[in-house]
């Protein structure tokens, strides 16, 4: 199988090479803004470097990738937002199959077989895709390869009829430790009555050396926190060693985002909340009473 890979994020692009090597030879497409990281690329057969196009140009990328894809059976993209935006468009241009956010992939009898989460995390769909196939790969599932020097071939950018013009682009401020890389996460939900009370969660996270994440309503509806810290199927999917869920009921969209956590603790006043079925340890108690005591006791241990 010949595999073409591309991601706007170089970190994810390196993961795609590993995913693609399970299927065959990988060519990695790189854009002008990514050239500075060309030496980090290992394990691909070749790099296709397009100096005439930047990774912000979605319309151009649809054209470029669709054009290149004639020579490949499989196109791999990343499951970040810009990657997912491309999947359906490129697949349809090729008259091919598509799937997003796949966690495993293999070739059987000339078909690509992938697994992906569906029904808000309640099921895994095993799907058979006809070729050509365009898929996005779940973040963090594959480690970047460490060996194998690729050859580099420069390619030209196609001419594109412009219908989308970017009139403003602002880089978002970076959060400290990204949630999906954190070892310890404290996740907060609607059980907190006001924004100021979140300090109880931050104090707990501090003493544990962890970070604070939130359910979608807390960030989206109440706007108490940045959207980078939403946990869930449309936000960040996390896989920490320890997750402490405080004052969240455990709606399906959230539950799907925490499935890969190693140990889950839930604190909630409602003993019937679904979160207790998703937890290893449940504390049926008012967070306002429990959190300060837990934090104090942890401080005592850590302090001496």
């Amino acid at each position, binding site marked *: 199988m010949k595999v073409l890979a591309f991601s706007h994020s170089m970190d994810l692009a390196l993961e795609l090479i590993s995913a693609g090597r399970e299927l065959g030879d990988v060519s990695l497409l790189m854009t002008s803004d990514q050239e500075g990281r060309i030496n980090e690329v290992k394990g691909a057969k070749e790099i296709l470097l397009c100096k005439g196009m930047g990774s912000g140009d979605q319309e151009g990328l649809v054209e470029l990738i669709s054009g290149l894809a004639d020579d490949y059976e499989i196109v791999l993209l990343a499951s970040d937002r810009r990657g997912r935006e491309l999947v359906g468009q490129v697949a349809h241009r090729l008259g091919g199959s598509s799937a997003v956010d796949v966690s495993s992939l293999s070739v059987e009898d000339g078909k690509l077989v992938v697994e992906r989460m569906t029904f808000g995390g309640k099921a895994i769909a095993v799907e058979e895709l006809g070729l050509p196939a365009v898929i996005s790969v779940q973040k963090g599932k594959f480690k970047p390869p460490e060996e194998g020097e690729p050859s580099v071939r420069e390619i030209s950018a196609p001419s594109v009829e412009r219908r989308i013009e970017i009139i403003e682009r602002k880089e978002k401020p970076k959060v400290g430790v990204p949630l999906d890389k954190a070892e310890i996460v404290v996740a907060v939900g609607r059980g907190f009555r006001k924004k100021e009370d979140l300090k109880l969660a931050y104090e707990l996270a501090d003493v544990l050396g962890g970070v604070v994440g939130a359910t979608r309503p807390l960030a989206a509806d109440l706007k108490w926190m940045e959207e980078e810290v939403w946990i869930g199927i449309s936000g960040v999917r996390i896989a920490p060693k320890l997750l402490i869920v405080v004052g969240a009921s455990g709606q399906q969209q959230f539950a799907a985002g925490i499935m890969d956590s190693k140990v889950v603790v839930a604190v909630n006043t409602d003993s019937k909340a679904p979160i207790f*079925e998703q937890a290893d340890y449940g504390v049926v108690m008012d967070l306002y009473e429990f959190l300060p005591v837990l934090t104090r006791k942890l401080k005592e241990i850590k302090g001496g």
Partner: protein
Amino acid sequence: MDIAVLVKQSLDVQELRVDQDTGKIYIEDAPTKAGDIELNATEEAVRLKEKLGGKAIAIMLSTWGSSGKRQKEAREALTRVLAMGLDGAVLIMGEGAEKGDTYVIAKALAGEIRDKFRLVLAAEGSEDNFSGLLPARLAAELGWPYVAYATAIEVEGDYVKVTRSLEDFEEVVKVKLPAVISVTQEINKPRVPKLVEIVKAKKKPMDQKDFSPPVEPKLVIRELKVPKVERKQIVIEGDVEEAAEKLIQALKEEGVL
């Protein structure tokens, strides 16, 4: 300017029962509804229509079978969005639609949209499958530009100004109409229809059409598995002091403290 809103008949995943031991997924028993983010797309369409004139129509292609129960639910889901202020709805239903992948459905929907609408609004993902593939494929099928993850939309003459949120950037883009735009839940707060609006919605035009697959699917679902998530579900008892101590002890034994 007439606007089409793609409304999926989504399985209500919160109500979907799965059996960890047998691996059975009770799809037939689960109710279906209009997905939450599609209510945001509907709200945005109604706001744009109120400002600019023209019609806003819901389009649904039902993929969970065409039993009496599913027909009733599909009509209820459409009544819900009509009550929010849409002018009418198209419901496409029939045998074989449940085997249709996004390739087939995009082809089937394109005929309902081309030449009739200038703007298509959709959700960033459906509630049950959350792939977000359909609006992207529909745009490619129509040959229209596609912008996903909109958090604000403004129509300015022949263009739409879309603000969108990506992982690392905030972007404002100007898109030439006709176009397909998918929205996130942050774009607005969907209105809750009053009873009188729901009564009125039942009298709005709902055009039901038979589905016939225009092409063969490119994808087959081989199997649906129930993921094994084995949690200990231990309830920590005692007063606040005891519970905190017991929890710390347990986490030490797990080796995570």
